[in-house]
């Protein structure tokens, strides 16, 4: 099976490079350029993993996505989907007020900083996909 990754990020260049990277590593990739578009894409594309930028148009747009995934009925089947939170700012999630949906949905090792450390990212992704499939 070819795992599907959804990239939600408003930086087109970041999506372009990461998409090529993932495709060359055997993933299928879809892109969305906002939290809203991302949520629509989730339903249509049914990804196995989401890579989500925290700070898009509004500084907390990424959180809106985890919130919807966690609480909205349409997204019930994605409640357990592995989500990687990506940000260009180095900050640990406990330095700011953590949002509940986020705390429950995102494992601490899935906070990544841009630019991504490629080997580490690929390794985490592989594990996430394996765990997602195992619990399906």
């Amino acid at each position, binding site marked *: 099976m070819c795992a599907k990754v959804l990239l939600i990020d408003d930086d087109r260049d*970041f999506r372009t*490079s990461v998409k090529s990277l993932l495709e*060359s590593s055997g993933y299928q990739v879809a892109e969305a350029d906002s939290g809203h578009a991302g949520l629509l894409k989730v339903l249509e594309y049914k990804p196995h993993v989401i890579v989500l930028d925290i700070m898009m148009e509004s500084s907390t747009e990424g959180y809106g996505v985890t*919130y919807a995934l966690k*609480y909205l009925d349409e997204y019930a089947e994605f409640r357990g989907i592995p989500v990687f939170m990506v940000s*260009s*700012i180095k900050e640990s999630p406990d330095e700011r*007020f953590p949002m*509940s949906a986020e705390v429950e949905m995102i494992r601490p090792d899935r906070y990544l900083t*841009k630019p991504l450390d490629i080997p580490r990212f690929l390794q985490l992704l592989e594990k996430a996909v394996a765990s997602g499939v195992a619990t399906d």
Partner: protein
Amino acid sequence: MSESAAPEAVVVIDDDYAMRLSCAKIVSKMGLRVEVFEDGARGLEAVAALKPGLVVVDLKMPGISGLEVVSRVHEIDPQIIMVVITGYATIDTAVEAMKSGAYDFLPKPFSPDELRLIVNRGLERRRLALESQRGEVERALLKRTFVTFVSHQLRSPLAAIHQYLDVLQRLDEAGDSPARRREWIGRCLKRTEELQSLIADWLTLARVEGGALLKERVEVDLKSTIVNILENYRAMAAAEDVALEVSLPEGETRVRGDRTCVSVLFDNLITNAIKYNRRGGKVTVSGGFCDGEIVIAVGDTGVGIPEKYRPFLFDEFFRIKDSGVKRTEGTGLGLHISKRIVSEMGGSIEVESQAGIGSTFRVRLPAWREPADDAEMGGWE
């Protein structure tokens, strides 16, 4: 996003059906819009969508707790007034809720009058807060998020470039395609330029804030400054199919200021007029005199600026992101810097605009006077 004149909305979140119903009845009789929800998750979604003036929430509910609703609502909008409903024995939790930002609490059972009173008081307080503190609150929020925002702005292009190079290096080992390589290098250059202009903007801002304009006040001729800038942008305008026209008045157009800052000011206005124009459009720079001031107008035939955005136009980082509006790259600092420069020079800047037709930015600057005239005003050391 904008405050409308429609009746204020009140959201009631309570898992108890009877309670929801009676609250809804009382509140809607007060002439307010009311929406009821049975759990915190749905209630919060509604709060995010409706931006109500006031939220009534039961502290004891299954699912997301009332306490959490209180803090989440304030993440959505700190100006929303929160009233919590508590059971007999939960005063402690009520206190907790007030600490997390609730406005007041209603112990069960309560009478319709008590609810009405608290809702009215709450909304009144909100109105006052909105009126008197609007600007301040916004500024305080902006300050707090400022550092995060700036580092985000500076790091994004750098991260994008870095990621391109990193991935390129890796794909190279696997035999990269030259076409992709060319495209990515092009993008890296673009993003580098973006970073350069961001840094340049920051430096100018620092210069203005550091008082460079007060220290270094020399004679600057607007006419030649503007003509030079237009010359620099001939090619850019031609590429966008925008005509540049200039009609500056005969006579003295000298002002007193910092040469770089004056250039930056008109550079910003002229590049905006080109960037936010349409193909086949034009930019007109014209001038005149009025009450000892030189008035320069930079007009365009572009997308225009919807009225609702005009109050924010000169704020730092403000950019219009409507779907109808042309998307170009930029930092959102240009007009903020321009306004700072103009006010430091004792002038003013205003905008007139019609969406879809065009905009005109009008700058007024005090005309240069010989230093002798200034001696009596305290000199210019």
